[in-house]
C-alpha cells in the first residue's frame, strides 16, 4: 500500500521551508524551467497522493544535490523514489532509454533458474581464490560493454584494473559466476518487485558461497549493497567495502606504491560515491600517489560536483545532454588530458554525450576509470 503519511514522516517533507535552495542547485531545474522539486512535492500533497502523478517525476536524476543543500535534510530523492513506485504500479508510461535493454536484462536476471555465463572477459593473469570468503562484486560492466559497444565503452577495463590491484596487494577474493545486477536502477525507477527479486537472488548466492565480505569498484553496487540491502533483506550481515576504501589506506601506510604516469587529470565525483557515500578523499589520494600525475579540480567538485546527467536509464532527454555538456565543459576548462571517474555509468553517459554531439560543441576529453589508470601506471613503461 502506498502510504503517504509514512512517506511524509520518513522523508521529512513537511520540514520544507519553501526556501527554494533545492531548485537553485538542481541541475535539471537549471535547464528545464518546468521542473521544480517543491512544486512536485506540493502537487502530490495537494492531491493527498491520489490521482495521476506529475510526469516530471521521471526527469529527476537522483543526483542528491537538493538533499546536500537542504538545511533541513528533506530527502527529496527518497520522496521521488516512492512516488515513482506508485506511478509505475498504476501503469505510468515511461520513456526507457536504449530500448529498455538494461531493465530487460535485470528482469531476466531476476529469474531464479538463470545460470549466467558472465566471466568470459576475465583475463588469464588475474588470480581468483575460489575458496575465499571475500567476494569481488563485478556489477554490470561486462553487460554494459556489449550494450554500448557502438559507443566504444570499455567499463570492464576498470574492473580488470581493480582485480589486478587486489592481486598486487595480495587480498584474496572470489568472483561469483551467477552474480545478479544489484538492482539499483530498478529501485530508483520505482520497480520495487524487480529490485527485491534481484536482491534475494544475490543474497541466496552470497549465502551459498559463504561470503562474509564484499569489495566492489562500482559506486552504485556499493551503495545498494551497503545501504539498501540491509533495509530490504532480513539478516543481512555482510560487510561491504568500496575498493578505494581498501586501496587508499594501503597507499598511505606504504604497502602499495603505484607507478608513474605523466598525465594531467581531473576527477569527476560520481554522485553515488560522493554525495551518497561520502567518499571524496580516497580516490584523490589514489590519483595523487601516482608519480608524475598532475591532478586538477573542476569548477564544481566534491559535494558540489555536477552529475553526469544520468538517470536510471529512463527519460534521457536534451536536458540530460545539456548537463553532460556542462560537465564536460568544466573538464575541458581545467586543461586536463583525462577525465577520471570511478563509476561505469558516469563513463557511459559522458561518452554517449561526446559521441552524440553533432557539431563538435562538446569537449572530447578522454574518459577513463580510476582503477584502469592505476593499473596502467604499474605496467612497465617506455622511458621518454
Amino acid at each position, binding site marked *: 500500500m502506498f502510504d503517504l503519511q509514512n512517506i511524509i514522516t520518513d522523508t521529512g517533507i513537511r520540514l520544507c521551508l519553501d526556501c527554494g535552495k533545492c531548485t537553485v542547485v538542481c541541475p535539471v531545474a537549471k535547464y528545464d524551467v518546468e521542473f521544480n522539486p517543491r512544486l512536485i512535492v506540493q502537487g502530490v500533497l495537494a492531491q493527498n497522493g491520489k490521482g495521476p502523478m506529475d510526469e516530471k517525476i521521471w526527469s529527476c536524476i537522483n543526483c542528491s544535490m537538493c538533499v546536500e543543500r537542504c538545511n533541513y535534510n528533506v530527502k527529496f530523492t527518497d520522496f521521488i*523514489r*516512492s512516488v515513482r513506485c506508485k506511478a*509505475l504500479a498504476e501503469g505510468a508510461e515511461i520513456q526507457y532509454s536504449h530500448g529498455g535493454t538494461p531493465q530487460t536484462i535485470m528482469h*531476466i536476471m531476476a529469474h531464479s533458474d538463470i545460470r*549466467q555465463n558472465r566471466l568470459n572477459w576475465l583475463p588469464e593473469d588475474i588470480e581468483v581464490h575460489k575458496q575465499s570468503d571475500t567476494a569481488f562484486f563485478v556489477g554490470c560492466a561486462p553487460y554494459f560493454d556489449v550494450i554500448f559497444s557502438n559507443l566504444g565503452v570499455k567499463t570492464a577495463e576498470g574492473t580488470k584494473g581493480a582485480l589486478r590491484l587486489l592481486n598486487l596487494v595480495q587480498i584474496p577474493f572470489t568472483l561469483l559466476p551467477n552474480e545478479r545486477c544489484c538492482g539499483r536502477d530498478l529501485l530508483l525507477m520505482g520497480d520495487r518487485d524487480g529490485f527485491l527479486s534481484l536482491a534475494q537472488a544475490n543474497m541466496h548466492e552470497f549465502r551459498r558461497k559463504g561470503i562474509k565480505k564484499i569489495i566492489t569498484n562500482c559506486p552504485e553496487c556499493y551503495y545498494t549493497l551497503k545501504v539498501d540491502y540491509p533495509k530490504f533483506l532480513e539478516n543481512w550481515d555482510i560487510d561491504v567495502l568500496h575498493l578505494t576504501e581498501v586501496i587508499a589506506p594501503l597507499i598511505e601506510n606504504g604497502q602499495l606504491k603505484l607507478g608513474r604516469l605523466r598525465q594531467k587529470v581531473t576527477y569527476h565525483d560520481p554522485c553515488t560515491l560522493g554525495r551518497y557515500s561520502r567518499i571524496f578523499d580516497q580516490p584523490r589520494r589514489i590519483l595523487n600517489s601516482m608519480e608524475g600525475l598532475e591532478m586538477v579540480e573542476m569548477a564544481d567538485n566534491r559535494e558540489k560536483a555536477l552529475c553526469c546527467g544520468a538517470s536510471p536509464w529512463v527519460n534521457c532527454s536534451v536536458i540530460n545532454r545539456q548537463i553532460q555538456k556542462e560537465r564536460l565543459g568544466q573538464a575541458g576548462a581545467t586543461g586536463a588530458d583525462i577525465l577520471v571517474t570511478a563509476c561505469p555509468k558516469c563513463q557511459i553517459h559522458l561518452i554517449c554525450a561526446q559521441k552524440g554531439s553533432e557539431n563538435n560543441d562538446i569537449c572530447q576529453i578522454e574518459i577513463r576509470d580510476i582503477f584502469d589508470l592505476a593499473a596502467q601506471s604499474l605496467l612497465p613503461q617506455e622511458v621518454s
Partner: protein
Amino acid sequence: MYTELLVFACNWDGWSCIETATNLGLSYPASVKVVRVSCISRINVGLILKAFEFGAAGVMLLGCEQGKCHFGVGSEYITREYEKARRILNMLGIWEGRLILVQIPAFDGHEFVRQVTKLITEITQIPSPKYARGISPRPAQYSKVDSYL
C-alpha cells in the same frame, strides 16, 4: 510441446515472404507469432530481449537481404543489433541459437517456412538441459505496491 516463436518481419521483403507462404498454402506451426515492423532496423537489443523476458522460446528477425534495405542501412544496423543480442543472451546463459537473423530475397515463402520449422525443431531438440531452459513469462506490469518503498 508448444514452442512460441516470435518473428519480427520487415514490412518489405520479410513480410512479402510470409504473404507468399500464405498464398501458396504452405503450413507452419501455429505457435509462430508475427510482428510486422516498418523496417527491421526498428528492432533493437531491448525489444529482442523483451521477447525472451515475456516467454518467447525463440526470436526470428526476418529482414531484407544484406545491402538491399528499402531505407538504406537497415540491414547493416540489424546485423549489429543481432550480434549484440547474441552476446548478451550468451552471457545470460540462454542458448544464443534461440535468436536467428534471416535475410532472404523477397517472395521466398518456401525459405521462410523452412527456416521457421528448422528453428522450432532446433529449440525442441536442444540436448543439454542447460540450454533447454526457457524463460518463463512474467507480467508486463506490476500491479501492486506492498508497502512504502
